[in-house]
């Protein structure tokens, strides 16, 4: 049943997200839906970077939510006046200093369809082996990790890695290698 927005109320505005309580109409009956929306949100990108030696170039950073350092694919938010592809190229340059040889979009997913407007565009990029310096913000602390494809595939599908985006992108690429997609 279609849910039509009647009104919206800002419950709390955070530094990154805002929490809204929308009144919605379902078959002419009103109820509420709690949703979170990233401020100035244009979407996010995730990039599986594979170098000329077929190694995955991943990133390792501390995640407050997981309370530990986790390894994942390169990723970040789309900025104003950027296309998802522009953002993917910029994030590869900033996070790992990677120079792209070829890049292709492989999907677009909603990680939390029930209550979040978050949407993630997925790419696979072939990059040069030699990496330049990273270009990070003050609060970014990102380690570049070079890892074999098989090891990274095993890692993302293990209990150690819970990142849905990394799991999605690696399993899509694995299906591609197996000629299933």
């Amino acid at each position: 049943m279609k849910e039509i927005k009647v009104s919206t109320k800002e419950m709390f505005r955070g530094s990154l997200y805002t929490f809204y309580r929308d009144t919605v109409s379902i078959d002419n009956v009103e109820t509420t839906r709690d949703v979170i929306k990233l401020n100035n949100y244009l979407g996010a990108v995730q990039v599986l970077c594979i170098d000329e030696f077929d190694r995955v170039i991943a990133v390792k950073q501390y995640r407050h939510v997981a309370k530990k350092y986790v390894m994942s694919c390169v990723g970040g938010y789309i900025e104003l006046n950027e296309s998802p592809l522009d953002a993917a190229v910029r994030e590869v340059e900033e996070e790992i200093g990677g120079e792209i040889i070829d890049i292709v979009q492989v999907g677009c997913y909603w990680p939390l369809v029930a209550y979040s407007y978050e949407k993630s565009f997925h790419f696979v990029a072939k990059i040069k082996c030699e990496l330049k310096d990273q270009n990070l913000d003050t609060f970014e602390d990102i380690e570049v990790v070079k890892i074999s494809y098989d090891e990274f595939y095993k890692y993302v599908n293990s209990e150690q890695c819970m990142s849905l985006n990394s799991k999605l992108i690696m399993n899509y690429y694995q299906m591609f290698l197996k000629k299933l997609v």
Partner: protein
Amino acid sequence: MNKNFKLMCSGVIFDFYQNEIEKNGKKQKFDLIKHNGAIAVLLKDGEELIFVKQFRYPVQDEVIEILAGKIEKNETDLKEVAKRECLEELGVEIKNLNYFDTIRPSGGVCTELITIFTADVLKYTDTTNFDEFESVQMVKMTKQEIIERIRTNKIVDGKTAYAVMRYYNEGN
């Protein structure tokens, strides 16, 4: 949770927390969305997979998903939650319920964890018990049908695309 995070606002399905971190003389606030977690079930009936189709408000469209449900605050036995959700949402009694994986859909700020199981249909019953304003439709698909939808990016729900792709990548 990091004790420095303070509750800023409570919601129906999540609570909003925030803390402040200082680095090199600069201060920055970080958001944290606390959610109690959910279960999801990759449900099989012979060679077919069973999905639910429902309208999702943020997407503003009907979305095909594997069956999923929120874990209530007093619930600790996730297999029981999975069995209950299969019965309540689809009227399906299940067998061979096995752990598949745990995922964090939005790793940066949201604490939600989804525990995914696989299960087989034992029998279909007439028992469904939807929450108010919940309306779900059962959709069955063959391997070929669901893979074609993934290939053409028609499966927009992340947990669903992941569970299906990994299931088939493992030789099923």
